[in-house]
């Protein structure tokens, strides 16, 4: 007997809907859910929405290169022997056969020449390390320039900074393991840095090396730090970093339909799973190509470490380049002798003081900014770099400092490749390291402000069409046309900056206001930060401008003007569709 469904539901189907037999994937999912109860959690997270922008994928490069590091690193541990025991090399590399070296060096050569795919894995591991830290820095810059580190993401910023530090240390320990000439020189330098610490320097050095440099224990110790301790902390912090990302939800660019309360984008499954998965293979592919085609750290040419040898071009890997550069441009005579003990400022300042100080400044950036602005609201909409000119300029100044110190770390290579004198480069850098950041700050801030002005121009007077009209009097003028509403919305989706006003030193009864000194400082900094910014036009200004534009159009409509200005651009087509953020 068939059921008459027309009474209970309006449907264009004649028979009742029945559940389809589940496919194999569905059955498997049901089987797993019955036992693990994942469906509830997955239901939410598989539909989690991420906004779409290329700059949001920079951190992913770091994540995927870390995965490559884990994979290739495991491969390398199968053959690497972290021992400083002395043996004579008898492997395949002719030029070093019969040469005495440590077992770690010999096993590195063994991996390079006698293990199938070993050299590829070594080079991939090294390139992946270089890219891992580079992508962390690029990601950091994106986060800083867009103001994504504002509340509630300050702590995730701090975690990111610690990841950068740990990545650097992990890189350094890995670079030191093969015990070749270059890495040994680096370890010797690290020993010198430790010993430059006042009072406890020699104790720390003896503790780390288990006696006088080099001893027999540094490689095994660095090895366990490199393969267990730091990777463990890195993994835990990466997990925390990503959990916080899920908890906070991803930031997005402002635009129509995008608010502080929502996230507009595509769901994890199927879109982002595919995009992120695809990106993993791209990262893997780029690293594999680099590992296969480009030489990195050819230890067989360096030969085993020997304190009596050194090579020109002895540099650390790129991420340690900037402290090395500071060390290179530091005047070498800066030492003082106190009670018969030498304080080596020439090592202390560039290595032990400035780099940690820079890291602390980096970590504090969101907190300093939050204190000055007094902004306690959550921010999920990003700011364009131009709309926070002071922050952008501070970051560019820090980048300039970093870049100059970094370049100074390669002063010898710059000298020979550009036919310059290494001394002149050093003198230049000694001055540029102070003036460069200031100059960069000033230029960037003015640049941002003029871009803000440009945005206001577009809002008030429209965009430049490139159509030149001549009036009956012979005057030439460029026709401006209003930008689309979407574009106008996006441009105005930012807040007005408010300069923090200080109340007054004393209240009405003559009692000093609490925190008045810090309040005054805050007010001064807030003024310094915002005073020059260009604010978006007010409603009245916009209406006035539109009124003016309509009037103009009306005046011209009667004239014999076949060209409305849209003949030579595609705005007429696009006005109907959603317009990307930075169109015209």
């Amino acid at each position, binding site marked *: 007997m068939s059921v008459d469904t027309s009474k209970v539901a309006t449907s264009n189907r004649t028979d009742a809907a029945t559940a389809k037999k589940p496919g194999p994937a569905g059955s498997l999912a049901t089987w797993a859910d019955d036992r693990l109860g994942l469906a509830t959690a997955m239901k939410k997270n598989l539909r989690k929405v991420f906004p779409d*922008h*290329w700059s*949001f*994928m*920079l951190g992913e*490069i770091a994540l995927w290169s870390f995965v490559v590091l884990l994979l290739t690193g495991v491969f390398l541990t199968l053959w690497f022997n972290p021992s400083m025991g002395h043996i004579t090399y008898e492997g395949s590399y*002719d*030029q*070093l*056969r*019969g040469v005495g070296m440590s077992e770690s060096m010999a096993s590195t050569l063994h991996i390079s*020449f006698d293990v199938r795919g070993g*050299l590829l894995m070594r*080079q991939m591991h090294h*390139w992946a390390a*270089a*890219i891992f830290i*580079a*992508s962390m820095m*690029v990601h950091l810059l994106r986060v800083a320039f867009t103001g994504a580190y504002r509340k509630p993401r300050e702590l995730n910023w701090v975690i990111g900074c610690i990841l950068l530090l740990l990545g650097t240390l992990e890189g350094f320990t890995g670079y030191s393991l093969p015990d070749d*000439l270059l890495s040994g020189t680096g370890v010797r330098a690290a020993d010198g840095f430790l010993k430059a610490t006042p009072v406890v320097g020699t104790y720390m050095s003896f503790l780390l090396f288990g006696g006088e440099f080099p001893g027999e224990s540094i490689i095994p110790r660095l090895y366990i730090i490199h393969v267990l301790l730091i990777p463990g902390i890195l993994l835990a912090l990466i997990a925390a970093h990503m959990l916080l990302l899920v908890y906070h939800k991803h930031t997005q660019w402002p635009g129509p339909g995008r608010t502080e309360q929502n996230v507009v984008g*595509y769901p994890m499954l*199927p*879109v982002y799973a595919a*995009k992120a998965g695809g*990106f993993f293979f*791209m*990262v893997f592919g*780029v*690293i594999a190509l*680099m590992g*296969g*085609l*480009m*030489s*990195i*750290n*050819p230890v067989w*040419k360096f*030969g085993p470490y*020997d304190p*009596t*040898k*050194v*090579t*020109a*071009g002895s*540099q650390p*890997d*790129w991420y340690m*380049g900037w402290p090395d550069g500071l060390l290179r441009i530091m005047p070498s005579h800066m030492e003082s002798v106190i009670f018969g003990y030498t304080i080596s400022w020439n090592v202390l300042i560039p290595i032990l003081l400035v780099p940690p100080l820079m890291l602390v400044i980096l970590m504090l950036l969101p907190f300093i900014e939050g204190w000055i602005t007094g902004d306690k609201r959550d921010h999920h909409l990003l700011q364009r770099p131009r709309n926070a000119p002071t922050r952008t300029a501070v970051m560019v100044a820090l980048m300039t400092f970093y870049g100059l110190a970094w370049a100074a770390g*390669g002063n*010898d*290579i710059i*000298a*020979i490749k550009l036919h310059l*004198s*290494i*001394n*002149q480069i050093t003198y230049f850098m000694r001055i540029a390291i102070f003036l460069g950041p200031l100059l960069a700050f000033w230029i960037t801030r003015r640049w941002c402000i003029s871009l803000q002005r440009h945005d206001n121009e577009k809002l008030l007077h429209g965009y430049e069409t490139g159509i030149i009209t001549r009036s009956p009097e012979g005057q030439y003028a460029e026709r401006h046309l209003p930008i689309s509403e979407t574009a106008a919305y996006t441009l105005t989706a930012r807040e007005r900056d408010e300069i923090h006003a200080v109340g007054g030193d004393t209240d009405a009864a003559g009692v000093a206001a609490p925190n008045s000194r810090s309040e005054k400082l805050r007010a001064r900094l807030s003024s310094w930060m915002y005073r020059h910014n260009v604010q978006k036009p007010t409603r009245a200004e916009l209406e006035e401008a539109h009124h003016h534009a309509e009037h103009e159009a009306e005046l011209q409509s009667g004239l014999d003007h076949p060209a409305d200005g849209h003949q030579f651009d595609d705005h007429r087509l696009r006005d109907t569709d959603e317009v990307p953020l930075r169109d015209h």
Partner: protein
Amino acid sequence: MRLLNRTAGRLSRHRRGPLAGLVVLLLGLVISGSLYTAFSPAQADSQPSETDQVAQGKELFLASCSFCHGQNGEGVPTVREGYQLGPSLVGVGAAAVDFQVGTGRMPMVQPGQQAPRKPPVFSDEETAALAAYVASLGPGPAIPNESDYSIEGLSEEEREEAISRGGQIFLTNCTACHNFNGAGGAMPRGGYAPSLHGVEGKYIFEALLTGPQQMPNFSNGNLSPEEKRDVIAYLDSLEDNAEYAGFTLGGLGPVSEGLFAWLLGIGGLVGAAVWIASHTTRTKKSKVNP
């Protein structure tokens, strides 16, 4: 005859072709060159005697070298004390001249921190004459024979030993300036240790012997001739070997590696991110018009 005509006809079709002028020019050059070689007097018979050589060398020296090194090779001091236009060449030996002139470093084009390597100005014969003249000014190291800097005569086993020994000597004495790869390095005040790639064994031997420019002198008491030979053998072996690891990126160490990690690695991956982000999802197989 008909065949010949046809061939000539085929050729003449090309006589106004774009390459015709070039072909004729090349033909002319090849023919005149071969004729000259065939009819010019044989060189072997005209080897000058030693005194002739010295006399010829002196003439060349007066014309090209004496401005800085003095009419008798005694050197020319400048007004500033301790500085000289050109050092004295008494006692530098034939090896120094063969190195400096043979590699084109001397005569210098202009005064500078360092004389760069360039195509030699003098022919082999003229260089030999200059060397003979300068050698006559005072005793100094002679131009080495090929057996001094070549490991040709050694057995396979001895060669391998020589190469690995040479590598260790190279790393101890040379890499501090010339870099582990022989790619060169910076010296103070615009000076530089030049690249050793493609430098003939003879010139490396002479450079070690005479210590040109900023290079220290590795006398035979310091590095024996065999040890010098081993260093050259090691450098040759590096050049003969395949680059096991791919492109060397200049062989300059971590600086160029970092440059490539940023330019190619991060640059490429950011490009990939832009590409992925710009290709968004669509529900239909056909492309939707924007």
